[in-house]
């Protein structure tokens, strides 16, 4: 990680970081985000994350960015998993247990079909 020395550095770094993000968005990579706050973990987000990781390894899926985030504040909906396929809108799933996670990975990430049964509705 770079160390910054001036206010200009801080401003410049944001632009660089945004450029990297744009490149990442355009590079055709699938992004999967798991909500991993206390509520999410209590609802089993760790198992969900592990399942997704195992699935990626077992099936040798390339170009997938898996990352975590905090809670959205929707108690009772966790674990929340957000999937963004390249050039597509973000899709949020709620109450994702390992079984559903495997289904999402197979049907949505691999085959490209959104699973309407598990969508997060606010």
């Amino acid at each position, binding site marked *: *990680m*770079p*160390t*910054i*020395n*001036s*206010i200009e*550095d*801080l*401003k410049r*770094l*944001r632009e660089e*970081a*945004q450029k*990297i*993000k744009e490149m990442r968005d355009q590079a055709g990579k699938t992004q999967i985000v798991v*909500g991993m*706050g*206390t*509520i999410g*973990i209590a609802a089993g987000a760790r198992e969900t994350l592990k399942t997704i990781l195992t699935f990626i390894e077992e099936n040798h899926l390339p170009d997938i960015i898996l*990352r*975590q*985030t*905090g*809670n*959205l*504040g*929707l*108690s*009772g*909906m966790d674990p*929340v998993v957000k999937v963004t396929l390249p050039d597509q809108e973000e899709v949020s799933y709620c109450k994702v247990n390992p079984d559903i996670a495997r289904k999402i990975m197979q049907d949505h990430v691999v085959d490209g079909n959104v699973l309407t049964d598990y969508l997060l509705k*606010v």
Partner: protein
Amino acid sequence: MKQYRSMVLISNGDSSQSKGSEAVIDAFHQAIEKYDLTSEVYLTTIPDSGSPKSQPLVIVYPEAVAYGPVSAEKVDFLVSEHLYKGRVAESLKVSDPFEIKRISWLVQRTGTIPAENRIVLEYVGVIDPTSINDFLTHDGGQAFATAMEMEPQRIIDIIKKSGLRGRGGAGFPTGIKWQAVRDAPGNKKYVICNADESEPGTFKDRVILEGNPFSMIEAMLIAGYACGADEGYIYIRGEYHDALEKITNAIIAAREFGVLGKNILNTGFDFDIHVHSGAGAYICGEETALLESIEGKRGEPRQKPPYPTTYGLWGKPTLINNVETLGNIPPIIQNGAEWFRAQGTPSSPGTKVYTILGNVNKTGLMEVPMGITLREVIGIYGKGMKSSAFKFAQTGGSSGSIIPAILQDTPMDFDSYRNVGVSLGSGALLICDDSNCIVDCVRVLMRFFQVESCGKCVPCRIGTEQALEIMTAITQGRGTMDHLAQLEWLRKGMEDFSNCGLGQTAGTPIKNMLDHFRAEVEAHIKLGVCPAGVCEMGG
């Protein structure tokens, strides 16, 4: 942050559904898309309101107009008239005079929309809390960069002008506090982030810390620069393991990055942050007890004055702010005081994060502008009561107030609530229906205070114990009318003579109970029955 121009509520309970409300919702989605209003209009459902005659009922903010009954065919006309062209569709308005009376609460709500407006929570649940790079991509650090180019006094002026008030419960103007610390004599000053969120039912600070720990570091840096402090502490609740881990890692990352430590960004400004974990005491959320706890002593409140702004941690001037208050600082610095003033009510600008729980269909966290009413919270965000009718709500954990149903149309801001004799507290909204007994509820609260009282001053130590005994007697059918007079006397004693906020607010539930639910309490004593069927009553 997404700001909506209009908000549409559609009733979607059983009765409305039988009259085709789901088709109306679909039609609304299509019409809003057709007129390209998706980014301007916030569409949501509420439970049945009003009588079946005018369902499905549609309410449009900020004009606060009610339409009903609305059929799917008329939706296109309604959207084009009201939302696209901006004039009220008079022909579809609720016309039944009886119905108008039932939704008369709407009249006072003209001009504001109760839509979610995430300022503090903007990037919570979006960014990766373990990656400083992800924080930078989402405008992170820019408020700090802007602040460092200003004079410290100018930052405080902006905060003062924004009208930001402390979100920990008391609502003290933040700018004045900052000014007091800046003006206090001495070279060594501290900034403390109070994350000891121990009010039962509140978990907003945890979500903020877990979701965006870097914003807290950024806000503390700005506070330190503005007040002339060079050291900061985050006092975090002992139970918050995940938040503790995330904030500790964030501080390490920030140090490596070069924004914490000596001579930050070559400006000659030094600042470092330490994390201090609490050990489970409720009283340590009180600012002076928190100071004692950091100093390694027993968590007991100090006498005030002197206030922490002049005599705080190790006798030095200290700024203590709640997590949510600090969370508001970077957006204010970035967008200016005027922008902040445009949200919420004139006396309490900005938004408030609430945690909603209890007998509602949907629980969770929301950030809405100040001035929303309880009725709207329950309808829009709680999606209605689970089974029976709304009886009372407890705001702000134990030290808050009990709000009876008659006050549910009071705007939720610091001053409006103070005017009707209740307090907003820290943001927990425990919604209770009429299967809950007020006497039992107050007994439980008294038990909480009796356990959590630190025992330093007599009124609180003895008062809570006595109040608990009397409340237990009433729930067991041994209550007398003299008990009520004693409770009133105890409450006044605790409020007037206690050392700190715990004792001073411990009597609030008793006061609210006797003010608003006296008949129910007297039924326990005179008739020997619990109207809600909760208390044992000696049987």
